[in-house]
């Protein structure tokens, strides 16, 4: 961790965005769609990593923030006929508001209690989406494509059914989340968050009200997760309570762990890798979870700190 991002670090991370931008010209349609999905999920993981990787708070309830985004965008489109931009804004705000409310309560606990409390809130949120199935469509979900108008900017019209629109909207979301998390990590606030991760008691004695900082981290994390959920609903035109289930709390944890906790590039690499491990192995066998399990064991043995974390530890200590 250096005092500020050097040219090398900026170039490397900008390079990732450029590679993703150029890749769409060469990718076959199947992988093109996959990558769009990966970038949305990676943004979710980026949001998760702000809290877990850079603040040291392990949440098992992030599905509720992702789902807040999914429903915030999807339901406003379905019931209120919002346009894409307004719906996206509603999704981000839902994630942000929920994270604020949950953070105010859950951050009074730490460690394992925090994990349990977030898990409980997320389960409550999941059950809420089922309970109000008249509105949410419950576990059947709702398809919003017929309700969602194309986005018009000036004389351009973007249809969310167009793969190129999907891809570039996902890329834009990822690039912004990536940039926000990078700016945060290198800001004075980010320094305090990392200090909280390393030693919270000491950080208090340096004059920081650590509760406020943890709440801020939770809000940023929830807003980014909400943005990812909102984008997912808009691009793949489906909302459903699956997104609020525990699976979607474990995914970002897994993606972040595989990629490297507390690394900027970890979330995108971890998400991409896990997505393709599941994708390829489920094409080979029905028991694809065995393959996924073996891959995870190998990763833990050879890359205990995740891919980027281990690379940083062994070869490139300057990686943020």
């Amino acid at each position, binding site marked *: *961790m250096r*005092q*500020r991002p050097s040219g090398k670090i900026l170039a490397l991370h900008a390079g990732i965005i450029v590679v993703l931008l150029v890749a769409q010209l060469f990718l076959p349609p199947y992988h093109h769609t996959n990558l769009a999905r990966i970038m949305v999920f990676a943004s979710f993981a980026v949001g998760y990593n702000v809290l877990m990787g850079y603040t040291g708070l392990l949440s098992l309830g992030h599905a509720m923030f992702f789902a807040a985004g999914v429903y915030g965008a999807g339901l406003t489109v379905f019931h209120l006929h919002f346009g894409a931009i307004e719906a996206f804004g509603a999704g981000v705000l839902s994630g942000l508001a929920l994270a604020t409310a949950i953070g105010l309560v859950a951050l009074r606990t730490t460690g394992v209690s925090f994990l349990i409390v977030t898990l409980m809130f997320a389960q409550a949120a999941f059950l809420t989406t089922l309970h109000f199935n008249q509105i949410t469509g419950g576990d059947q979900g709702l398809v919003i494509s017929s309700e969602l108008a194309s986005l018009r900017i000036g004389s351009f019209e973007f249809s969310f059914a167009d793969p190129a629109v999907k891809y570039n909207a996902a890329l834009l979301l990822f690039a912004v989340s990536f940039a926000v998390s990078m700016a945060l990590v290198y*800001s*004075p*606030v980010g*320094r*305090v968050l*990392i*200090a909280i991760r*390393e*030693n919270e*008691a*000491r*950080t*208090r*004695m*340096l*004059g*920081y*009200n*650590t509760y406020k900082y943890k709440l801020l981290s939770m809000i940023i994390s929830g807003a980014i997760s909400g943005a990812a959920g909102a984008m997912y609903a808009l691009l793949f035109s489906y909302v459903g309570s699956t997104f609020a289930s525990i699976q979607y709390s474990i995914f970002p944890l897994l993606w972040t762990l595989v990629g490297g906790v507390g690394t900027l590039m970890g979330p995108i690499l971890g998400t991409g890798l896990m997505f393709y491990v599941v994708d390829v192995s489920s094409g080979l066998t029905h028991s694809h979870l065995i393959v996924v399990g073996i891959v995870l064991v190998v990763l833990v043995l050879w890359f205990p700190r995740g891919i980027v974390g281990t690379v940083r530890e062994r070869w490139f200590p300057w990686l943020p």
Partner: protein
Amino acid sequence: MAAVTLLEATGLNKNFGGLQAVNDAELRIGGGEIRAIIGPNGAGKTTLVSLVSGRLRPTEGKIAFKGEDITRLRAWDRVARGIVYTYQVTSIYNNLTCYENVALAAQRRLMGGLLQRLVLGEQRIAERVEVALSRVGLTGSMGRQAGELPYGHQRLLEVAVSLALEPELLILDEPTQGLARDEISDFCELVRMISQQATILLIEHNMSVVLELAHMITVMDKGEVIAEGTPAEIEADDGVQRAYLGRDAAP
């Protein structure tokens, strides 16, 4: 020496369950003073300064700093007012560089509102980090991981962190513990230099350090303040001799 009272604690009590760690203690420290607190292990020294720094809350009593009642203030708000505590056991961030360790303290002094925190220039932080590290002689270790430093340097880093917080009252909890003899004399020099800008409250076992540095000494035993005076007065005090010698003489 003590023109104005900087810190005034009255009727301080702290109970841990049935144990009375601090019992009706009074502490009055003047601006610019170097005050030492001595006493046998378990006398309540660390508990007393923890009450002052806000790490612990008193069961009873009142603490005033520069005339303002700070009894209810949390530790971080006391730091903002200039009360800075350095840990007995070195408590730096081992995984961060020396620069980052000191920068955390330096930016605390510079940060105003939340917006300012997000845009605060690194240059201004860096200047203060350099000043603090050079005062303890660690400029050359700026980019090293704090955990890799030799122990004596870790203690110095801890002091640099405190200096970057620009303390008015600096609490040093057993700062020379574990240091080699020549490191101790350098440390005394450093404390004397710091005392030109800050009042110092020092917990120390090493009596030669205490006698060399302190203007005033407070003696504690079993949670109570049993004596207070200049080094000469304390050396001559019968009660202090008994508390120390009585304990030392016991098998």
